[in-house]
């Protein structure tokens, strides 16, 4: 027999559980989902409101004000982030200024400290980038931001440490009572308890009515949000609200504790407490409203969109009381905004109610306030990092490359009675998959760690709730035992062999970042030019990069004059590195590169290390554009992959990603994956492409799609994704000439998996950190003919500069980078200067970009190769090259399309001897395709 059973493990349930665990009570917390913080707590604005908004005298007003006051201590006690950023309610007209004054008055009544009405000038001073029409604001300095699920988890951990028992995956189906207390039926078990606290959020009315006559009704209200990439948080120094209306607080902007920008919500009444999909209309509404507050919001940095439900009631106020019908049954219901802010005060309030019912609660002597630190490894100082890696080398292995999250943190997140057991559980606790690649790279590795730690098979690892399986079996129907995830390839000795003075950094001539085709070719080329000490740093377990998962043929026709598969192409280069004795570090993540060419990396063997290079080649490659980045609305179930992630699962890990698959986007990876899926015995329902033509190579269309009778739906798009746990289907629509869906053409397709093949984005976080100037058109560094970036001595090549269609071109370009770096090192040693002049390359009309961006004639070879891409499809067009006004070359092209890179060889002899500013390339239209 328990003393107290709490139903619902959201922020309210966990707050109450921890507060009650201070007393001598036997407590159980019952949760229908697999994890804490899985309902409204999972998806909200994460704001601790100041408390000026609720009507004075209401529970909302009292508990918000008190809750806000409690936050600082609570979060510091639990080692959870909380920042008092302050909030601004912004007025754009005199009527709205009146509203501000009313809010101010109300806030004073609610006892909110520090409120201030500020005028236009000061407003624009403390918050820049607001639209000019903003004329004033209500400033509330006590408003703050927190991490709601981390808080909920930390509360649960503390509660568990103080004896609270947690039951997950347990849906309450019936409750009965007699003189001895209550009997709660869930999952064919009966739990006996003296008191019940109903904190079931969106289901609070259902739970209440299991025993009581109908009273309050929960009317789920959905709010959708955009989440933008880290570092965009600076777009909102404060929490920024528009003036509230009858509909609610409106679309706000705020930074998250992790430096992201969050934009939303709208407010839409929905029928079901499960309706957590996003909608085209909702997201459009949010964007339009956000832009009323601030122009120039970086919507191109959206990494995902999501929606959450608020447990509103018609009553308006929180309902926190013992049921008048059933003594000992306490409802904590209708906790919508400001529920998060009020949570600590609600817990105290409920404890008070229980204290009265029981007639006095006895405090424990040995309450454990906090169980483990929640500070991310990367936020620690060097000393603390070193110490952790010393104690447990797994803190030296980065699993999530976007957020730099270590294996040590992930393992720690799994430990304990309320440890993560799912991929989303890990994401909530330590954030891998919460970054810009949305788990594309780390997903498979996180799953492997979960499987290893929980001693289950990989296909049994779920995304969130039961039924949300990510994998559907193994390829070849052959079982796979878990293997050690240590380095696969041979790791050559890396020590440069130089004797160092005490405290000096190890010095290399050349450090190459990335051991894919670009990095390997650059390293080999530099060695051939005589560069002596070279170090290649690769984050994966082996060299070769993405080639290792591209098991299809079609590589090497230009570079090796024969047709190879991806792994064969990689192995040829790996052999060259070995032969030349080039040193490599595998399983090693570079954390930063400085302008002065210092490289800081971390791995399990060396810990956190900084080395110095005379020259650096950046070869980090690219990442895939995700579903979130292109804003496809719908639910967020398991079964959504980027094509490359699916390719890794199928080809390297040996697991199947689905049974009925839709491929969205007709890029080469998508087409090639469609064939692989069919050959491995699953069905590809369709390949969907928004454009009127297939984007991939003709050969891939014929040999991957046509050969297997896979329907290719051109001029179609996905407008909705359905399914709660696993994808159940999609809605597609025809597209118009702007690639937008045409109303009235919607239809449903059944599928359990969607592969996104919607383009690649150069991975330039390190480049940005080094101050390298990027080109908006390519997304990569601006480079010269030697592939040197805007920062002297830092070179870049391959897909980090611009996305190539063939690896052969990557290798060739990277040879140039390697040679350029080697020559640069020599020039520095010999202190020689370059002669000649520098001209820019200038893409005109339909040419979207040219690489290199500038050419130094003094360093230029006799022949230079210019790479470019075009917009739109063109037939029999001419490319016209002009040095200044002088025509220097004309190249006829039978066909030009955006999917295919164009290269033009230009001879030095064709160029004028006299300096000129720019070499322009223009497309002269032939017959339009």
């Amino acid at each position, binding site marked *: 027999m328990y003393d107290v059973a709490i139903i619902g493990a959201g922020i309210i349930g966990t707050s109450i559980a921890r507060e009650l665990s201070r007393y001598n009570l036997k407590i159980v917390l019952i949760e229908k989902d697999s994890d804490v913080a899985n309902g409204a707590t999972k998806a909200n604005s994460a704001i601790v409101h100041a408390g000026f908004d609720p009507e004075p005298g209401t529970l909302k007003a009292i508990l918000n004000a008190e809750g806000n006051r409690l936050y600082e201590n609570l979060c510091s006690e639990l080692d959870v982030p909380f920042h008092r950023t302050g909030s601004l309610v912004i007025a754009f007209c005199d009527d709205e200024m009146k509203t501000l004054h009313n809010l101010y008055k109300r806030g004073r009544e609610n006892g909110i400290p520090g409120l201030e009405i500020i005028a236009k000038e000061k407003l624009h001073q403390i918050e820049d980038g607001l639209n000019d029409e903003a004329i004033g604001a209500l400033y509330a300095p006590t408003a703050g931001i927190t991490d709601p699920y981390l808080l909920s988890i930390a509360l649960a951990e503390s509660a568990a440490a103080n004896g609270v028992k947690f039951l997950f995956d347990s849906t309450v189906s019936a409750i009965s009572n007699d003189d001895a207390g209550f009997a709660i039926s869930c999952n064919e078990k009966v739990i006996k308890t003296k008191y019940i606290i109903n904190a079931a959020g969106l289901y609070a009315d259902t739970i209440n009515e299991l025993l009581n006559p109908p009273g309050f009704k929960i009317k789920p209200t959905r709010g959708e949000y955009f989440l933008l990439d880290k570092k965009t948080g600076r777009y909102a120094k404060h929490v920024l609200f528009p003036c509230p209306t009858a509909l609610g607080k409106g679309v706000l902007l705020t930074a998250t504790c992790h430096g992201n920008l969050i934009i939303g919500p709208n407010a839409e009444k929905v029928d079901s407490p499960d309706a957590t999909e996003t909608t085209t209309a909702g997201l459009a509404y949010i964007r339009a409203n956000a832009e009323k507050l601030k122009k120039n919001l970086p919507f191109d940095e959206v990494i995902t969109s999501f929606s959450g439900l608020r447990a509103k009631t018609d009553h308006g106020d929180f309902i926190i009381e013992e049921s008048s019908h059933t003594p000992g049954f306490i409802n904590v219901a209708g906790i919508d905004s400001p529920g998060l802010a009020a949570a600590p005060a609600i817990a105290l309030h409920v404890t008070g109610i229980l204290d009265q019912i029981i007639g006095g609660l006895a405090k424990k002597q040995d309450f454990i306030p906090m169980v483990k630190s929640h500070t991310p490894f990367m936020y620690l100082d060097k000393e603390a990092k070193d110490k952790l890696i010393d104690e447990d080398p797994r803190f030296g292995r980065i699993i999530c490359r976007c957020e730099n999250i270590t294996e040590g943190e992930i393992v720690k997140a799994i430990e304990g009675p309320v440890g993560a057991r799912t991929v989303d559980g890990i994401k909530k606790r330590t954030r891998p998959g919460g970054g810009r690649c949305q788990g594309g790279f780390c997903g498979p590795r996180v799953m492997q760690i979960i499987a290893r730690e929980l001693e289950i098979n990989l296909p049994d690892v779920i995304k969130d709730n039961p039924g949300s399986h990510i994998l559907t079996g193994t*390829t*070849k*129907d*052959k079982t*796979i*035992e878990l*293997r*050690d995830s*240590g380095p*696969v390839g041979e790791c050559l000795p890396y020590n440069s062999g130089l004797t160092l003075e005490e405290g000096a950094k190890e010095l290399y001539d050349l450090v190459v970042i990335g051991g894919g085709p670009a990095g390997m070719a650059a390293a080999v080329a530099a060695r051939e030019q005589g560069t002596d000490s070279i170090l290649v740093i690769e984050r994966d*377990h082996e060299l070769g990069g993405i080639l*290792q998962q591209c*098991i*299809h*043929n079609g590589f090497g026709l230009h570079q090796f004059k024969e*047709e*190879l*598969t991806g*792994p*064969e192409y*990689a*192995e040829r280069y790996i052999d060259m590195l070995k032969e030349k004795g080039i040193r490599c570090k595998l399983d090693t993540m570079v954390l930063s590169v400085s302008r002065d060419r210092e490289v800081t990396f971390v791995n399990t063997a060396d810990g956190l290390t900084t080395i110095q290079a005379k020259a650096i080649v950046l070869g980090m490659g690219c990442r895939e554009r995700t579903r979130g980045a292109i804003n496809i609305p719908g639910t967020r179930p398991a079964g959504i992959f980027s094509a490359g992630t699916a390719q890794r699962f199928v*080809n*390297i*890990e*040996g697991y199947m990603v689905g049974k009925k698959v839709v491929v969205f986007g007709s890029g080469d990876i998508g087409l090639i994956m469609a064939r692989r899926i069919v*050959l491995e015995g699953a069905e590809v329902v369709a390949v969907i492409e928004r454009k009127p033509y297939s984007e991939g*190579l*003709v*050969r891939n*269309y*014929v*040999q991957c799609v*046509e*050969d297997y009778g896979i329907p290719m739906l051109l001029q179609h798009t996905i407008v909705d994704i359905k399914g709660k746990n696993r994808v159940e289907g999609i809605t597609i629509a025809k597209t118009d000439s702007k690639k937008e869906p045409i109303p009235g053409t919607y239809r449903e397709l059944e599928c359990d998996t969607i592969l996104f093949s919607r383009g690649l984005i150069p991975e330039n976080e390190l480049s940005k950190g080094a101050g390298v100037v990027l080109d908006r058109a390519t997304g990569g560094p601006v480079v010269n003919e030697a592939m040197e970036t805007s920062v002297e001595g830092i070179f870049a090549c391959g897909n980090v500069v611009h996305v190539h269609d063939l690896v052969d071109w990557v290798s060739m370009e990277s040879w140039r980078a390697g040679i350029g770096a080697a020559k640069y090192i020599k020039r520095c040693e010999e202190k020689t200067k370059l002669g000649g002049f520098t001209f820019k390359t200038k893409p005109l009309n339909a040419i979207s970009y040219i690489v290199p961006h500038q050419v130094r004639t003094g360093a230029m070879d006799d022949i230079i190769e210019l790479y470019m891409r075009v917009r739109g499809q063109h*037939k029999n067009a001419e490319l016209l090259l002009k040095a200044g006004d002088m025509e220097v070359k004309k190249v006829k092209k*039978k*066909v030009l*399309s955006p999917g*295919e890179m164009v290269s033009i060889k230009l001879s030095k002899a064709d160029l004028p001897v006299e300096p000129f500013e720019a070499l322009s390339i223009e497309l002269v239209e032939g017959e339009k395709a």
Partner: protein
Amino acid sequence: MEEKEMICILCPLGCKMQVSKKEDQPGELKVRGIQCKKGKDYAYEEFHNPTRTLTSTVAIRNTPLPRLPVKTSKPLPKELVYKAMEEINKVEIEGPVKMGAVIIKNLMDTDIDIVATRSLG
């Protein structure tokens, strides 16, 4: 008379071709829609003897990775692709293995081998 629709894969133009046997000259082909000589040769091959290089993986034990990428040593008659997959799926080998190692010799009496496309273990 048999006419096949096909798309030439040799260049980005992707010519749509209609290929049929010439009635008066057996063995010769009538190709419409093509723009170059190479395309005609491709059409001839693709009409009479379409082949594909098949790439896949086989199960492997005793190695850091559980699957080994493989390919056919030569292009395989297109109609044998699914049958070849059945054979490939049956195999389970022990590592280590070197790139180029023959995994299945003389696949279905075609004189084509299945070979490893990387070294593993």
